[in-house]
């Protein structure tokens, strides 16, 4: 029978053995200090089965409290912590260290195409303005029913994919057309328009289509599939955009 002390030492040794040393290379920007953004390296011991967000937490809590980033739920639902990790837009809270080659430095940058406010925090206003512009709410006419608005399972299935959006901006900020001047509505806004255009209960599909028929609407999409690759929810974003295009041409939705 082992003593408690022995147990603890063994546990510590076992716990320490699976930790690896990882370098986080983080794009830092603080307008109060310098107008230039710089790379800063942080080395830390971390379990490879932990997430990039845990690494950022370790840095912020133990190494450098000035590191700034957004996160709320930390479990891939709130969509706050989309960032460019190793050159690809991902959610820091859904990316495991072991999946992104921890042998090399892990680069963490703010998402592109939106103004950086500090470190990994960007100004999301243009993104949400485009979202508002497509009227992401149910529009109906007539009297309100006294019970729920019912819908068949097939009708619900039609737009099921696009209901998964968490508005993290990973898709929009991976879109090369959005990077240019930010006037393009962006994949996220089109996905959320798709969610209502193809909803049998909604009556403003025509209006939303006309909004997306704009010069900076769906026709600027070049089908590069960056958005589909970037989406942490696995939404087939480019497919949704193409379906909106088809609806615009055939006026069937």
């Amino acid at each position: 029978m082992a003593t408690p002390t022995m147990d603890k030492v063994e546990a510590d040794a076992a716990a320490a053995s699976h930790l690896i040393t990882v370098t986080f290379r983080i794009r830092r920007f603080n307008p109060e200090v310098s107008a230039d953004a710089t790379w800063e390296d942080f080395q830390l011991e971390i379990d490879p089965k932990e997430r990039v967000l845990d690494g950022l937490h370790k840095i912020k809590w133990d190494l450098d409290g000035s590191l700034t980033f957004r996160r709320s739920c930390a479990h891939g639902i709130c969509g706050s912590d989309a960032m460019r990790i190793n050159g690809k837009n991902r959610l820091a809270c859904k990316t495991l260290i072991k999946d992104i080659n921890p042998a090399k430095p892990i680069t963490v940058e703010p998402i592109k195409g939106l103004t950086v406010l500090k470190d990994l925090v960007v100004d999301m206003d243009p993104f949400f303005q485009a979202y508002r512009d497509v009227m992401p709410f149910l529009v109906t006419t007539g009297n309100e029913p006294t019970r729920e608005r019912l819908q068949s399972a097939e009708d619900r299935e039609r737009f099921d994919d696009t209901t998964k959006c968490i508005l993290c901006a990973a898709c929009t900020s991976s879109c090369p057309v959005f990077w240019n001047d930010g006037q393009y509505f962006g994949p996220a806004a089109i996905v959320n328009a798709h969610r209502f255009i193809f909803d049998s209960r909604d009556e403003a599909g025509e209006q939303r289509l006309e909004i997306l028929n704009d010069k900076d609407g769906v026709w600027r999409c070049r089908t590069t599939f960056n958005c589909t690759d970037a989406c942490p929810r696995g939404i087939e974003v480019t497919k949704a955009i193409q379906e909106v295009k088809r609806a615009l041409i055939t006026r069937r939705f």
Partner: protein
Amino acid sequence: MSTDTTVEKSGGSGIGPVEGASLYDVDNPAPVIEAPRKRTTKTPRATRGNFEMAAWLFMRLSGVVLVVLVITHLLIQLVLDGGVSKIGFAFVAGRWASPFWQVWDLLMLWLAMLHGANGLRTVINDYAERPNTRLWLKGLLYTATVFTILLGTLVIFTFDPNIR
């Protein structure tokens, strides 16, 4: 829409004013989603005759037609019947004696030029960041396109096989 009333009674408590409207008030226990900037009336404004949609459709349709036109053209010119060595003034003159090949080449000229010009237009739209750069690049593009199309059309229609 209801946004106007929300803005008026924005004295309600909330985290702070967001774009002129308070986040919450008695009637809106959830955050207010602002109405879109434009087009709040029932019938939306038609947007520029949907030029972008026409351009997008044209790219797809002309692309399909061009595949047939260009591959056949390349086969006839470069592969079949002796290959590239047979091409000379006489060969071209012989083909253009037939109205069928005249129309073929005319169609190919117009579709290919407009297809290419529209592709470059979107590239300029996507990559030129300053309005002035855009203006000049597009001006250059349109001039070159119109010049090439007109010159080519002129040649096809006024081609004289007996020229000295």
